[in-house]
């Protein structure tokens, strides 16, 4: 093949690249045209015979055989250019089909921009993977309008996630409110139940005995009248106390208790409380031991503390056997909180009673060891008051062995 023939073939390939994006850098020749030294004889040469065996021979082989070095170099450079174009086509074609696993051709500046695009798209794939795993902090900044709308999409996903989170929080709040509403309803039901029973019943005795007095006043002497008056007086007092407790408890539930924090020497308060119930204590032959250190100073509301202690003490008195001992003790939990415990070795509580102790809808009215009755409000009231002052209540009890009622209270810190 001479220069003209090689040039003609190359022109044809350049035409194919421009118009068909197709390059053929090999020629199909008869095997008989290939000489022993690797040179190729073109079919137009003389003395060649056609053969049915054909093979592809690189065009470079023909070019290498040219005598003129300048043309040889020119044609080889054209071959290089056509080779680069061919591999560029392969790369761009794969890229256009979304095949990012294709390796960018090395040492190929023609596809530089496509290599940049290829790297950007690989990074974009990585970012989308992160987003699919929940990482909504990804942003892109290298693909023009696509970046703008992609980032908007991420923003809307973030917005949706935030909305769902808030919706979940609202549902939880609603659920909590439902629980509180249920609790309030139980309180109301209990209140009405007590009004209907424990407050009304004493009036039967009041009306009955006062009516009997009225009916027989002229016939009774002083000694006969006295028991009636005592019964009316005692019943009135008990009913009044119950009413007071009920109102205090209702106030506590409304969150309307006014807490007036001040330093309070608890031991002194307790002694007052014990003295208040000295008659009942003596009547049951009980021993009440106040082990609270005289120097123990709490930071609390004095009136609320009196009510709390009164309730725990009366509870312990009610369920102690005649001759039992009630002990009131304290311990410092931390330098800021103390725990006060009322311990008795009375009837104690079974598991069911213990479980229902502070539950408004399950409060069981229990009769004391000497037939003492109560509406079960005292402990509920004490719990509200302790909690309003930043403390907590706990109970340990065993049936037949007695109970330990404890509550925590802040200690007074002069600083």
């Amino acid at each position, binding site marked *: 093949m001479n220069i003209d023939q090689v040039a003609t073939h190359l022109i044809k390939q350049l035409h194919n690249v421009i118009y068909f994006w197709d390059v053929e850098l090999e020629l199909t020749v008869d095997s008989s045209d290939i000489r022993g030294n690797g040179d190729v004889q073109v079919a137009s040469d003389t003395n060649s015979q056609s053969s049915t065996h054909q093979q592809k021979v690189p065009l470079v082989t023909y070019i290498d055989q040219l005598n003129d070095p300048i043309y040889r170099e020119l044609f080889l450079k054209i071959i290089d250019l056509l080779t680069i174009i061919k591999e560029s086509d392969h790369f761009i074609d794969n890229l256009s089909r979304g095949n990012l696993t294709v390796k960018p051709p*090395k*040492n190929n500046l023609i596809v*530089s921009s496509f290599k940049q695009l290829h*790297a950007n798209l*690989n*990074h974009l794939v*990585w970012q989308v993977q992160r987003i699919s795993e929940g990482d909504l*902090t*990804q942003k892109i900044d*290298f693909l023009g309008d696509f970046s703008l709308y992609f980032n908007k999409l991420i923003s809307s996903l973030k917005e949706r996630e935030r909305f769902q989170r808030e919706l979940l929080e609202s549902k939880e709040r609603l659920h909590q409110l439902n629980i509180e509403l249920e609790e309030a309803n139980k309180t109301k039901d209990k209140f009405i139940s007590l009004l209907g029973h424990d407050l009304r019943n004493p009036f039967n005795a009041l009306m009955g005995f006062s009516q009997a007095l009225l009916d027989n006043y002229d016939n009774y002497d002083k000694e006969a009248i006295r028991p009636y008056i005592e019964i009316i007086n005692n019943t009135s007092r008990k009913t009044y106390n119950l009413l007071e407790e009920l109102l205090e408890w209702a106030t506590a539930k409304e969150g309307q208790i006014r807490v007036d924090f001040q330093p309070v020497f608890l031991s002194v308060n307790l002694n007052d409380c014990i003295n208040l119930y000295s008659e009942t204590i003596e009547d049951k032959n009980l021993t009440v031991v106040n082990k609270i250190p005289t120097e123990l100073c709490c930071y609390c509301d004095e009136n609320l503390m009196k009510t709390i202690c009164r309730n725990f003490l009366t509870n312990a008195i009610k369920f102690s056997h005649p001759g039992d001992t009630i002990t009131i003790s304290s311990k410092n939990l931390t330098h800021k909180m103390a725990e006060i415990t009322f311990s008795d070795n009375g009837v104690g509580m079974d598991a069911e009673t213990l479980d229902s102790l502070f539950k408004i809808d399950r409060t069981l009215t229990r009769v004391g060891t000497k037939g003492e009755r109560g509406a079960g409000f005292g402990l509920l009231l004490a719990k509200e008051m302790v909690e309003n002052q930043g403390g907590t209540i706990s109970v340990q009890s065993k049936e037949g062995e007695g109970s330990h009622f404890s509550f925590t209270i802040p200690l007074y810190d002069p600083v």
Partner: protein
Amino acid sequence: MREDGYIFKWADIGDIEIGRPNLGPTTNVAVYRLMQYTMRSILNQKYGAEEASQLLYNSGYLAGKELCKNLLDKSLDFYPFVSQLQALLKDLRIGILRIEHSDLEKMHFTLTVAEDLDCSGLPITEETVCEYDEGFISGIFEEYTGRAFSVQETDCWSSGEIVCRFEVTPQAE
């Protein structure tokens, strides 16, 4: 700094705000490359190409460790840490870091850096030249994870590839 065995620490950078109240903290990339490539040239002549490459890698490693210690929050999880690193490198005009592949189990990563400070715009010599960056990335990863990493640049602007591509793999323990 002039003593034998001098070991760089971040504070050696000094307070540029005090030192350059008029010229400010930035300069031209050409100035940076002037320093790097003249130093590379001298190191090459004195110690040979291989040794010079290793010295540049080691310098980059030291720089990466100190940068991570002083400018990056190592308490972040991996992906937020990468976001932080991307923002920092862009902010410091070192390059635009992207992730092509990450395998947290095998701790194998493929990173690309576009508009790399060291090589973007260099003449095409068909060779990779970012040994300093290799060490830099290795230092950052080691400081963050506590494990040693090997970093190999597989593509570079200088080799005709437009973006620099680095393969990051843990060193055998």
